């Protein structure tokens, strides 16, 4: 098997083997461009949209976690669990412990999400399909029930968290929304870039193989169990970060973070986005928020009708999600390029 790399024919049939480093640099470059563009755009955005985009960033991160799971063939209907735990962990540290540095808090959220996922994952990694979805949902509902009972931390009403600081800098009110927005952009872009690289990596390919045929993967000597655990833990970290981000954007954290409808929203965003593109989750999150918000304002008594119809239409006409819009374009382009060869 250590023969010569490839003969001419196979090289023509598949994209040229880019060096891993070049791919990484390319992705990083795109990420930097996206980040700079978004940060600059942010300066011109009205405050409400800035906030909505920050929220979309947070939701998108959680949904990106679900995309990680989806690529491994699973969907979690209980990402509220990690989202909520991340938010509570960081929120309590901020409101009780006085730690307000956003980066510390985000790290706490990520670790909280990762740890709980790591603990739970071995328990649930052998489940598949609807059972996995429902079991995660049950776990998040247990957390919801427990938090709603803990009156010392606000019970079902939750608690407020202080404004975050940024490496010692405490922005005034006018700047704070923008500062958090920048953090959200940086997180989103970093997460998206790393996810892209991961999806294209051997581990990512293996996860995809797990989705398509677990039996085969086991018969290749790889562990479906560990792939699942790994994906779930990654999703946990992303969920925890999303929880912290949104919790501090809102300034308020409550057990509703762990309610099944919250988790359902994340799944919705992930499905709307599809798993073709890592950037799509953020767009899907933003689109959902905007549709909901405008529907609520113009049709306060029937916004659910609009939101439902919107979701149906997207699922019907973009079966592979919003992300397929541009990845389809991309594929067409490569096909054309190949045709010219």
């Amino acid at each position: 098997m250590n023969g010569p790399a490839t003969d001419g024919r196979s090289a023509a049939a598949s994209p040229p083997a880019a060096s891993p480093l070049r791919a990484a640099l390319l992705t990083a470059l795109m990420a930097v461009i996206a980040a700079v563009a978004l940060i600059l755009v942010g300066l011109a955005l009205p405050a409400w949209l800035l906030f909505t985009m920050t929220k979309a960033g947070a939701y998108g991160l959680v949904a990106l976690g679900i995309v990680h799971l989806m690529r491994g063939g699973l969907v979690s209907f209980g990402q509220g669990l990690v989202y909520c735990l991340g938010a509570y962990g960081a929120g309590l540290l901020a409101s009780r412990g006085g730690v307000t540095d956003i980066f510390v808090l985000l790290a706490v959220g990520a670790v909280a999400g990762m740890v709980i996922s790591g603990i739970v994952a071995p328990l649930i990694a052998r489940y598949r399909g609807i059972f996995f979805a429902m079991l995660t949902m049950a776990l998040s509902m247990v957390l919801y029930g427990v938090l709603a009972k803990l009156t010392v931390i606000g019970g079902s009403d939750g608690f407020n968290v202080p404004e975050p600081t940024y490496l010692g800098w405490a922005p005034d009110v006018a700047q704070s929304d923008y500062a958090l927005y920048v953090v959200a952009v940086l997180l989103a872009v970093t997460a998206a870039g790393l996810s892209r690289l991961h999806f294209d990596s051997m581990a990512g390919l293996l996860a995809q193989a797990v989705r398509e045929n677990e039996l085969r993967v086991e018969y290749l000597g790889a562990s479906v169990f560990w792939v699942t655990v790994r994906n779930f833990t990654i999703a946990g970290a992303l969920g925890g970060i999303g929880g912290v981000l949104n919790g501090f954007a809102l300034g308020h954290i409550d057990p509703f973070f762990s309610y099944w409808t919250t988790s359902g929203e994340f799944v919705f965003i992930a499905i709307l986005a599809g798993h073709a593109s890592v950037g799509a989750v953020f767009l899907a999150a933003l689109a959902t928020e905007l549709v909901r918000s405008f529907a609520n304002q113009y049709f306060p008594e029937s916004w659910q009708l609009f939101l439902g119809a919107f979701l149906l239409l997207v699922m019907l006409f973009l079966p592979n999600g919003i992300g397929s819009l541009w990845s389809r374009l991309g594929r067409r382009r490569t096909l054309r390029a190949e045709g010219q060869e």
Partner: protein
Amino acid sequence: MNQVLTIVVDGLIYASWLFIVALGLTLIFGVLRILNLAHGGLYAVGAYAAAVFVPFFAGLGLPAEFSLLAMLLSAIAVAVIVAPLLERGLLRLFYGRDEVVILLVTYAVFLMLEDITKLIWGVQPYYVFEPRTLFGNVEIGSLFYVGYDLLLIVLAMICGLGVWLWLNRTRIGKIVVAVIHNPEVSAGMGVNVARIYMLAFGIGIFLAALGGAFTSPLIAVQPGVSVSIIVVSFAVVIIGGLGSIPGAAIGAVIVGLARSFAVYELPEAEIFIIYMVMVLVLVFRPEGLFQRVQARKI
């Protein structure tokens, strides 16, 4: 002793309520592989329909006994009107897509139903009193129970047995089984698969609506009644094993008894006892209590 008796009776009444709805859910999943989140919405529509039919029958001057018939008719009406619309008009477009996508489609339907019922019936509550007065009170232990509530247990048993016999002892049931396993080959053998899907979906919807209709005398029919049932009946179906009728029955009884035990002994834990049971069951029986046999793959 007395306490145990009440726990059991209360648990069974609650279980019956859950079972009727969960039965429809598990049937739809079993045949169409759809976990129908809109089920709760249809439960609500069933309750609203009863709120229309029962007074209408009363208005005709029919005796109160006919209100039971009215409730049955309202469930049938919902199934006949809504099931084809939903199954043929919408869900069909998503067949072959991922389970989760269809789950979300039904969630979107659920959202829409919330507003549609509001547009049709407004937000004011409706009541359906007549049926509950029919059977008087029954003394069990030292407590009075309303006869109608006990009737729910009978109704649940009729529904469960009926659907089970239908699937397992009739020819059409066997045809349904064939469609479950292999829709394409069944069609090749002459089975009108679309009709079987609609039939199963229709019966599932009928059961949801029936649950709603027979619950309407116990509640104020108004926005929000759909939410209470969804998650719990999901839990029941998962505990029992998706697609299994005996499973749904046992799941409902377990959940009913656990909840009623919690009310007496652990009121603080009532809110999550159902999820705890679900987690426990799944840890020991990953596919639920009654798992279906899988055709071998290799």
